[in-house]
């Protein structure tokens, strides 16, 4: 059965490892220039080389993002970088600027994917980009699954759609608020997320604001319903330009039916927790739809005909993943324009989620598993700590496949052979420092030993669920770091939620 490629974000080498380990078929990442995430760690050329090695060894692909709108001065070293990418066997480049398309085509044979930043929305646009040398179209977020399938058939090009993550409110590439207000080019990685700010609106059905100003009317005109000419209404404290997040897991049957070649997850600025969890969830969903659900619920799926009844059954079937997606930092979810054009309800208007559930918090990322060797007398898992936790927390490991594993109660013996450490009492985690000395608490930016668990492997997420009240407070107040909107991640300052980086688009 047709199965789309699962394409995950990789804002750093660690996130690349995590995303692929949790099941991504491909990841997209950027070098130190040319991408839209200036604030992300991004990759040096040596890291790109290593990333390709890592990915190819696991039959995964690496796409390098070159989707800035470049000025002439930015183009100088581009061909050299492209040649390096080709030498390191990068599988594709993601481009939005025709000048970049031209340079890539002139100096390499790397497949060119047209970035969502180019806002390719229709068949004729697809045709023109095909003539320019593009092999894959990554559509604007306004394109439905059904339309994407039609354009694929009409153009013969590979097609890619976003399936999950933050969204630009604007047509991608058609927002320059940061350019003109902050002096930061949003289309060269400087998006200031102005669309996530809180605004006070003075709305009128009369002539343009400029004309009103001229005619003597001001923003102090009467408040009231807009029910006649020149009526004005105030709307304070609104996040009217902030979009809800995309979640397309319930539409996987439609992606399959339309033969969408690649489904993309937004979020290079997001944490390894997000990169890992979201890849795992969508990996499982895509696999189970293709391998189990379709076989169980109807032959129509295997023949590519998603019937309504089966589709609703899938929604119920997919609930288990939807629940987990709710536990990742996010704004309210919607299906964007994947089915119908995004309506007014697609605006994250209140700047806070409608419902707040406890969310997963990242505690650590496993880096190395040491099993019994001549020098290490007991097995352990080495992890870099991202957020503080204690021995008594309900700490869980997220294996690459299958359910989470509670680390509470797993026996840990220190590197000194001191089995009385703080672990092993049946309820605690059994933390040790890097050399195995028992710890009560793990501090951020340290290296710790965790007890060995089944399916332990490097690149796994260590997490715990926060409390609902903490989540509410976190979601409302968290301030996002400078996050380029054209592909963001965590929830922002003013309409913030979850982890740093919730911004927008690719």
């Amino acid at each position, binding site marked *: 059965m047709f199965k789309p490629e699962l394409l995950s974000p990789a804002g750093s080498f660690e996130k690349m490892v995590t995303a692929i380990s949790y099941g991504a078929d491909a990841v997209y990442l950027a070098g130190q220039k040319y991408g839209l995430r200036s*604030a992300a760690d991004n990759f*040096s*050329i*040596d890291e790109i080389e*290593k990333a390709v090695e*890592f990915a190819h060894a696991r039959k995964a692909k690496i796409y390098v993002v070159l989707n800035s709108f470049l*000025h002439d001065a930015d183009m100088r070293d581009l061909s050299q970088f492209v040649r390096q990418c080709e030498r390191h066997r990068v599988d594709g480049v993601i481009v939005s*600027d*025709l*000048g970049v398309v031209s*340079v890539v085509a002139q100096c390499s044979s790397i497949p060119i994917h047209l970035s969502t*930043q180019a806002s*390719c*929305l*229709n068949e*004729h646009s697809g*045709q*023109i980009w095909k*003539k320019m040398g593009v092999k894959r179209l990554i559509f604007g977020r*306004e394109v439905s699954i059904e339309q994407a399938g039609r354009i694929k058939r009409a153009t013969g090009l590979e097609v890619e759609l976003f399936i999950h993550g933050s969204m630009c*409110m*604007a*047509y991608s590439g058609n*927002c320059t*608020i940061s350019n003109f207000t902050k*002096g*930061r080019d949003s289309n060269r990685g*400087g998006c200031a997320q102005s*669309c996530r*700010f809180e605004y006070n609106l*003075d*709305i*009128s*059905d009369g002539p*343009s*604001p400029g004309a009103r100003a*001229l005619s003597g009317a001001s923003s102090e005109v009467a408040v009231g*319903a*807009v029910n006649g000419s020149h009526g004005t*209404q105030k709307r304070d404290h609104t996040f009217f*330009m902030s*979009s809800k997040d995309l979640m397309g897991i319930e539409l996987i049957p439609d992606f399959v039916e339309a033969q969408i070649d690649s489904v993309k997850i937004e979020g290079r600025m997001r944490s390894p927790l997000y990169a890992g969890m979201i890849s795992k969830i969508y990996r499982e969903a895509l696999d189970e739809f293709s391998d189990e659900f379709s076989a169980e619920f109807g032959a129509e799926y295997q023949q590519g005909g998603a019937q309504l009844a089966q589709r609703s059954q899938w929604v119920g079937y997919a609930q288990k993943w939807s629940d987990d997606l709710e536990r990742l930092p996010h704004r309210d979810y919607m299906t964007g324009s994947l089915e119908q*054009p*995004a*309506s*007014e*309800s697609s*605006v994250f*208007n209140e700047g806070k989620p409608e419902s707040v559930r406890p969310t997963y918090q990242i505690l650590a990322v496993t880096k*190395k598993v*040491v099993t*019994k060797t001549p*020098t290490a007398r007991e097995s352990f898992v080495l992890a870099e700590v991202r957020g503080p936790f204690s021995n008594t927390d309900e700490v869980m490991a997220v294996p690459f496949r299958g359910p989470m594993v509670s680390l509470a109660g797993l026996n840990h013996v220190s*590197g000194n052979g001191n089995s009385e450490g703080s672990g092993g009492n049946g309820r605690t985690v059994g933390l040790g*420092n*890097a*050399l*195995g000395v028992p710890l009560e608490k793990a501090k951020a*930016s340290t290296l710790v030993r965790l007890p060995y668990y089944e399916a332990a492997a*490097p690149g796994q997420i260590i997490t715990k669920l926060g409390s609902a009240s903490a989540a509410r407070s976190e979601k409302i107040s968290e301030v996002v770091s400078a996050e380029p909107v054209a592909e963001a991640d965590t929830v922002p300052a003013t309409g913030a939620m979850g982890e740093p980086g919730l911004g927008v688009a690719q």
Partner: protein
Amino acid sequence: MSHHQVNPQLSGDAGSQARVPRLSTYVASVKQIDECVSACVSEVIISHQNLARLGTLDSLALTELATYAKACGLKTSLEWDILMCEPEFHQAVRVLKELNFENFDSIRVQDPGAYEYALNGLAVDNSSVKKLGVHFVLETGNHNLEAILKWQNYGLLNCGLPNEGSKVQNGLKSAGPIASAQSKVNLERLVLSIELTEASLTEIIANLQVEVELLGLGPILLLYTPRHLLRYQVVAPNAATLFATAECEENSHKGFRIIDNQNGTFVFHEKDYCLIDRVSALMRMNCSVLRVDLRQQDSSAVPDYLGQISEICEAEKTQVGHQLTRASEGLAEAFKASYPTKVLRCFFQANATDVLLKHLKNKNIERKDEGYLGRVVDSTKGLYTIVCLEGNNAQLRVGDRVTLVSPAGTSKEIEISSLKNIEGVQVDEVSASRNSQEGADCDLSDGHEYAVLPFVKGVLPETMVYSV
């Protein structure tokens, strides 16, 4: 790549005489057309409600205006600048098929799909298209010569049917002969971005074969979305178009002007873009057309503004060759003083919107490949400093000297006095090489390895480690 200096603006005068840009502006009524005639505007842009972002006219009104404008001696341009998914595209094509193009000199498009259709499909679908110029709007992105040339060359090589030419299959045609006077559709003009500097524009225009239009005065569009962002904010909106101003605590985000209409929502800057005081510079760079957008101004004042702008251009024309007389500068200053909206030149002098990007993250913790060994992941006082070796074949040996670059940018050189591996065993070296631990039952799938050093005072996690 080499480019020829081929801009046609000067070519007719052997490149010796700069011309004042022609004026182009928007009209939606007969009265406005009359005002344009009085103000010596040479071209009017007419906007259909289903084709143009801020269009208000239906097909009948649009056609009547075009007829009237032509009769007044004005050039007419049909605006088709909305971005379109398939349903909107088909709707637009339905409108275009039914329109009478006899009184339109050009069509201006922005969606690449519309560019493709205008070049290769429109003349096939509509027999009233006899001679139509295509104006391609490259105001979003397209900030490098390579991109602009590619778009231009595509247009020049893909112009619609010759008058007696063969049919184009499926409305698409691969690269064909360069457009000639025989073509029904010709790429005539490129509209360039207001984010380009004077220097960039000068270089780009010198390399183009078609005329160039720039925004001379008008609102700065900041955001365009198909979603209706105002409509749901008000109680029982019964107007087709809503207007708003938006204020934000963020200093620079104030006074945004917003329009929510049938085509989505458009957010504009508080101030207008203005190059009216730079007409001489525009002449030097051979800008052919200056667009003036006064649609957000009080309509009763528009004739005066147009008249003043025309006067400024006229003054420039008479000053050509007399660089020391700058009467137009005084006129331009007077105009700006009388214009009710504050104006900006934005990036005309310089575009430094990439400068701040360098500060969005800490460059001290950005990996530089040369000599890179790894980064400090733990530095616990009195116990150890642990380095994760990440560089290609990175290796630490006792006696090595390394440079530590802290997140704050300070650097310190140290000598490795002793080393342990992560199992706590004293060793002479630790290597990131995958084979270095051959035989050990360790999973080193990312190739990284940890080296435990004696505690180094003052060193923080995320410190970068380079070989000396």
